[in-house]
């Protein structure tokens, strides 16, 4: 049974449609990232799940129990949902311990202190229980908010851009740490972010948002390798778009010559399309008679990012060959892979 089931959820605010019919399911222990630019409705959906935002149509259910649907509205405080906020929302007037135990009910004093110790240990904040939030670093505050959200054992954890206030140097470390905590407890989580990098690191699955709807939902690798539309491809990484003509179910022709596909293309013969080529999918070989010329380069350490002019088009290429100079003629080749053509 899936933890979270969202069906055809619509929401509008002052006549403006914010969510236009969303479907999403989440399995027990899964972490899904709601990814998209700001204003696309991902935070609205998160709040709707938490019961902080009304929906006008559709239904939201956890473990088969309906939370929001026609004539049903379970108030936030009875949904058993944990939430972590962008600004952590720690109560400034309470100590770390009191913050963590804020939502814990129906336990004896002994159980409460056990729960507290368990949580402090989980988030590696042993000994800091007496401190106040303002005496902690940003990362520590973040961990307190996680401990607080997990302490009352919610069915589902919601995270609203939780890493945007963390220093970029420690961000991915932090994400892995927290991901580990969630996995360790087998917690289902919905995570809102506008950063694909965060989504890749933290989530099991992605749900990419566009103007109040989910464009594509699935494993990160799937979305990256097989985006169903150009918006998805562009959002998840840089790419070149090459005009190609379908020559056979596994072959297209382009300015770079024939390119092989390892998967059958569902396109009519001789139809034209735009082929998505990630910069690392293009190979470079220096050649004095090459049909391309390097017009710009940027050194990135182990690799180098080149802008290569081919005919009228400029392609972006990432290559392990870091010594190529401006003006160098090169040959470009593309190894066979499942082609993505829009």
């Amino acid at each position, binding site marked *: 049974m899936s933890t979270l089931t969202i069906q055809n959820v619509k929401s509008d605010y002052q006549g403006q449609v914010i969510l236009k019919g969303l479907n999403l399911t989440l399995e027990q222990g899964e972490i899904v990232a709601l990814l998209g630019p700001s204003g696309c409705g991902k935070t609205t959906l998160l709040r709707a799940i938490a019961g902080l935002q009304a929906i006008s149509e559709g239904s939201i259910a956890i473990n088969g129990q309906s939370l929001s649907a026609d004539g049903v509205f379970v*108030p936030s405080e009875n949904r058993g949902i944990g939430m972590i906020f962008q600004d952590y929302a720690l109560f400034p007037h309470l100590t770390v311990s009191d913050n963590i135990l804020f939502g814990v009910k129906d336990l004896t004093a002994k159980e409460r202190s056990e729960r507290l110790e368990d949580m402090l240990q989980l988030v590696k904040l042993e000994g800091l229980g007496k401190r106040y939030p303002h005496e902690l670093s940003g990362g520590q505050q973040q961990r307190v908010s996680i401990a607080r959200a997990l302490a009352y054992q919610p069915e589902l954890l919601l995270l609203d851009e939780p890493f945007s206030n963390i220093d970029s140097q420690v961000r991915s470390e932090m994400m892995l740490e927290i991901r580990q905590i969630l996995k360790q407890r087998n917690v289902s989580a919905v995570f809102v972010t506008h950063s694909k990098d965060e989504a890749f690191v933290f989530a099991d699955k992605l749900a990419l948002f566009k103007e109040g709807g989910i464009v594509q939902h699935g494993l990160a690798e799937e979305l990256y390798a097989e985006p169903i539309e150009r918006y998805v491809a562009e959002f998840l990484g840089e790419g070149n778009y090459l005009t190609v003509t379908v020559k056979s179910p596994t072959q297209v022709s382009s300015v770079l010559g024939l390119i092989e596909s390892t998967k059958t293309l569902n396109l009519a013969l001789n139809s034209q399309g735009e082929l998505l080529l990630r910069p690392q999918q293009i190979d470079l070989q220096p050649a004095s008679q090459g049909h391309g010329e390097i017009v710009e380069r940027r050194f990135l350490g182990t690799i180098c990012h080149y802008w290569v002019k081919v005919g009228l088009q400029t392609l972006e290429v990432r290559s392990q060959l870091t010594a190529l100079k401006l003006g160098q003629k090169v040959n470009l080749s593309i190894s066979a892979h499942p082609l993505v053509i829009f």
Partner: protein
Amino acid sequence: MQRQGEFGMKSFKSLALLGLATVSSMGSMTATAAEDLTVYSYRQAFLVEPILEKFTQDTGINVNVVFAKDGIAERIAREGRLSPADVVLTSDFSRLMELVEKDLVVDVNSDTLNNNIPEQYRSPENDWYALTMRVRNVYSSKDRVGKLDLSYEDLASEEYRGKICTRSFKHPYNIALVASMIAHHGEAETKTWLEGVKANLARKPQGNDRAQVKAVKEGLCDIAIGNSYYFGKMMSDPKQKSWAEAVYINFPNQQNRGSHINVSGMALAKFAPNKDNAIKLMEFLSSDVAQKSYAEVNMEYPVKADVKPSEMVASWGDFKADSLPIFKLAENHQAAVKLLDEVKFDL
């Protein structure tokens, strides 16, 4: 919806309890026993308390006296049949008239009162009684003017241009004076008189009667209008004695009708909860002993014919009082106020 009546009974109950506690604690601040007498007084409490204490000693009836400078009539009117007031003491005649006009007092049929208080000092309908009287005097500078034998009419004469000081003419004491002028001369002539007096003012009407005497002492003006008892009060105040010593107290209109008299008085409230005891108190206030001390504390003249004023008051000399019955002033009260508005006396 799972939460029903969240704000519900519990919170409301505690709020309501708090409210009740507040209201009852407020009530207790002003509560009085039901059989006690309540006196609403325009005269300050310390002036009347000694006499009322005497009354309590004699009769065993407790008296609560509450003082207000303004608005007692308005308040009794608003309180209507729920008013706790038994007896109203006023500091002047116009306040008595206000009570009568608003139908807030009721007549008393007491032979004691009618015997003690002369006819011209009580209402023909027995619904109010004067207790003490005072003269609206004209004070003159000892140095610059000397003792005067003038009339109120003279105050409008050019001789005193820029030399007169007075308090607001909207004050009841001055309104009563204007009313008496109307009674003697009619409205048109009084209006001319008011314009003349206004033209003679050294400054815009302001302050109280004492402040006018002080102004004479300082040389701001030569003539001040003021009640007789203020002279006595200043004489007995160490700081103000020098003010009083700078002026003569003059009794106007001695050559003709006599000086304008105003009175303080009392009346029985229409809805008095304890009418019988209230009448006992009123009778007591007209008795020799009360008359003597009530007049004495405020340096006034007792209305009861055979009671003598205090030595100091007597020392200002005998005078002839205007024989106009006091209630005649009432007939001209509204006219006086309107005239004052018309000539913008205070503005």
